[in-house]
């Protein structure tokens, strides 16, 4: 392998016809994009960006898999994930006992995904969207019930899904999303 090497450079020299040539080049490129503009604006309520699998969006708990280990609460850098104590009846013995369950505070969450990655049983997962609306601040502090349901995704109900792909000629291109794509 070759290590990096320094290369001295200078600005391109200004030729005699630079003023003429430079202006012409700039105008030509302006005309080119006037005729054939590159646009990839998302017309948001009418269409929405179908994000790829693996996007770190809102977090959902699968309670059946949770082993109450509190790893997620311990690793959370923003202290958004917290363990709450909920009394319940043990099915086998019928005794009263208190268990710790994780809940999330979306006022604090920074979507780093550490909790999902640290969970030893995959009891947490990300939903691939982030545009969720809450009516007030108190709603953003989820309880155990609402933490188990994926948040309501209004944009998906009203809009059509699109996806951005990289194109060699046009950069980012907006294409309609096909079912089953990852």
């Amino acid at each position: 392998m070759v290590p990096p090497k320094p290369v001295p450079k200078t600005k391109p020299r200004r030729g005699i016809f630079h003023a003429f040539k430079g202006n012409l080049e700039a105008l030509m490129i302006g005309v080119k994009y006037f005729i054939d503009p590159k646009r990839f604006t998302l017309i948001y309520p009418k269409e929405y960006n179908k994000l790829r699998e693996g996007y770190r969006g809102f977090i959902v708990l699968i309670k059946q898999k949770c082993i109450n280990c509190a790893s997620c609460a311990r690793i959370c850098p923003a202290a958004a994930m917290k363990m709450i104590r909920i009394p319940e009846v043990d099915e086998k013995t019928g005794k009263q006992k208190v268990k710790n369950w994780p809940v999330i505070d979306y006022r604090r969450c920074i979507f780093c995904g550490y909790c999902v990655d640290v969970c030893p049983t995959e009891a947490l997962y990300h939903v691939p969207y982030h545009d969720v609306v809450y009516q007030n601040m108190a709603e953003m502090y989820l309880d155990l019930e609402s933490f188990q349901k994926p948040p309501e995704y209004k944009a998906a109900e009203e809009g059509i899904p699109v996806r951005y792909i990289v194109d060699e000629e046009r950069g980012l291109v907006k294409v309609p999303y096909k079912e089953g794509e990852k």
Partner: protein
Amino acid sequence: MSGFVSTRGQVGFNDLKIPGAWSRKIGKDLYEVFIGPQHPGSGHMRIIIRIDGDVIVEADPDMGYVHRTMEKLGEGREWIKGIPLYERMAIHDACNVTLPYVRAVEQLLGIEAPLRAKYLRVLLCEINRIAAYLYGFGIFGVFVGHSTMYMWPFGDREVWIELADWLTGARLTHSYPVFGGVRRDVPADFTNQLRKAIRYMRKRLEEYRKIYVDNPVIRARLEDVGVIPKNLAIELGITGPNLRASGVLYDVRYNDPYEVYDELDFEIPVFQEGDALARVWQRVEEIKQSLRILEQVADWLDKHPREPILHDRFWKTAPPLHKKIFETEGRAKLVPLYALLKVPKGKAYARAETARGEITYYVESDGGQKPYRVRIVSASARNAIVFKYILPGHRVMDLPTIYGSIDYFPPEADR
């Protein structure tokens, strides 16, 4: 506005009414103008200039408006929680900014990331670098009144953000490197998309040259403006592309190679002129070199099979479920040990080349779960002093040009 034109003394205190700027008379034919911190052209900082007519006599950069006590906050958090925190210095350059912290802690732990993880770190670092340069171009473009150059780089930056999003799962705050490796492997078909983006960007840089960098109007405004001579650049201790544009060969990737930069074939462009135009060209050339690095990284990743991307110390204790998820999804799950990590007592020092220059971390551990001290010297903090020495002698109209060409980023400087 009338107060600005008249310098005869009948203008009252605080008479100038430009949004975000504020002025007062401090002597005969001498006005003090406060630019920022809410001025759209100054970011979160204030530059206090004293002007005689239209000529800047004295300039005083006044920073610290977005200081977030980041170093102190880091002392109260566990080691791994420092990564998302320090990332907030420059979110569009997240991997470059946090990498030296991760490397310093790795030094203390006595571990090193696997080779594949190193290549993946370089991959994201270069994607971030290109995105950060394009961000700088956009801001610079709108500073000199070229709104096309504002729209285009911001549009093309989306390409790189989209790739970073696909790789890490987040557009900006990736939190990608962790101690002993990285969090995700490349998705299938990622390298092909990356190659398309590289070819697209090469074409695009030629168009940037035509409409902006070599445009006679822009050239007239940038050429021989804000010249930082070589000796002054060394004396002030500025860093990054600004230093290299003044003819000094200093790049951490070259002088003190980290990760796999010593195995990659790329050039360090060094411009001699040191003016605003040379600084723009410097960044254009550096994007080209970053594209070259990315090409080599994509080839390497294609040729080599998947291997664990976390160090054995963490990966060997991983349960079978973690290994299954890594094989199917390419996602390296973290072991719970990360949250309770105890770093051996010691001091470590690491540095990296970010898009704006050298960033250094000094990390001290007392053997506990939290760092004893993390000292950060970021690139923008070192570049800010330039304004004091470069602005005097220029006209007020050159201030945005110089500000934009330095590519100063206040949140990174203030920490």
